[in-house]
């Protein structure tokens, strides 16, 4: 059973190669950021798989932290397209500085 989980982990890892390619290729910053987001999601899956393969529940805490912080970089990124990096891309009008 452990080998099966590690095989699945290898599969997920290899599927992350495409995201690395997209992060390298771009073209936009949003594309690069999305690739990082995808690898973050892959990392959560990999942590769960390693935890199951080793039957070590403590490893799940790492998956928990990765999932909790998965969107942080994306949040910081979307701030950079707004005025002074302080707004919300959803607001129609950016606030006066």
């Amino acid at each position, binding site marked *: 059973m452990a080998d099966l989980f*590690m095989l699945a982990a290898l599969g997920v890892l290899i599927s992350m190669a495409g995201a690395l390619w997209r992060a390298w290729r771009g073209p936009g910053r949003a594309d690069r950021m999305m690739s990082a987001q995808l690898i973050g999601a892959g990392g959560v899956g*990999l*942590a769960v798989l390693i935890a199951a*393969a080793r039957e070590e529940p403590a490893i799940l805490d790492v998956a928990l932290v*990765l999932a909790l*912080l998965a969107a942080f*970089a994306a949040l910081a990124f979307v701030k950079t397209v707004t005025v002074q*990096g302080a*707004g*919300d891309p959803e607001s129609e009008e950016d606030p006066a500085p």
Partner: protein
Amino acid sequence: MSLAFDLALCAFILGAAALAVAGRNLFGSVVFYIVYGVLIALAWLSLGAVDVALAEAAIGAGVTGVLLIGAWQGMKEAGALEDSQAPPWPVRLWAALGAALTGGLVITAIIALPGQDGLTRTVADEQGALALGNPVTAVLLGFRAYDTLLETLVLSAALAAVWSLSPERVWGGIPGPKHVSRPDGVMASFGRLLPPLGLLVGVYLVWAGADQPGGAFQAGTVLAAVWILIVLSGLRDEPRVSSLPLRAVIIAGPAVFLGAGLAGALAGQALGYPPGYARTAILIIEYALTVSIAATLALLIAGPARRLS
């Protein structure tokens, strides 16, 4: 199967590092470094070092990304984003030769390293005296507590150094821009939804840290991330860096740590734990440190003061 996974993971780590270090696009480099943080956390998992993996997941994959994107934004605003030309070839050649030499020396050292038992058994034998189940916490706050004490002081010193970069006219003011968000928008909802869960995870990590993987540094980083999230989503502003309560919170952890050492002096051994109370003292220190580390890291990421109101 595990070996194949390890080799593939290492190949990915090297690939991400190479693209971060040598890529043409600066924002791309930042993104590759975030990816690299996730992969390094997985490497620590594969080695079975769950404590380190937790720290790397929180710092490398979470907080450092916010820091570097913020720095990129700051450079862009200052109009100082260097153009991304490749360096001239002699520079590249010499750097590559130096790098190959360094790497070769390190690899020779690894191969020449004699097999040793390490300190795992020693720690396991002595850990009982502190009544802690997690050997890493026993080392951090027991056997090598001096290191940890000095390290928390390094954090405070780094924060003082960052604050000292504030311009004169906003001295003691508020770091970062005033963040806003659409009141009922996605960003604000996320900022309201995640902090309770993050708080729970942070408290859980420090609570678990005595006997399982976890501890003050990991928990502190998660709490710092919650702080940063609340500020970024515009729900609360950063405090003034001159605020006395804030400074008390930052100093509380090292102060409690030093206090425990002085209490040890009264019990007969300076900077030692009184026999029988080691676990209690360590737990008190750990909770105090968590709060201080959270505040210090969050403000380190926020940077020097930028405005007065």
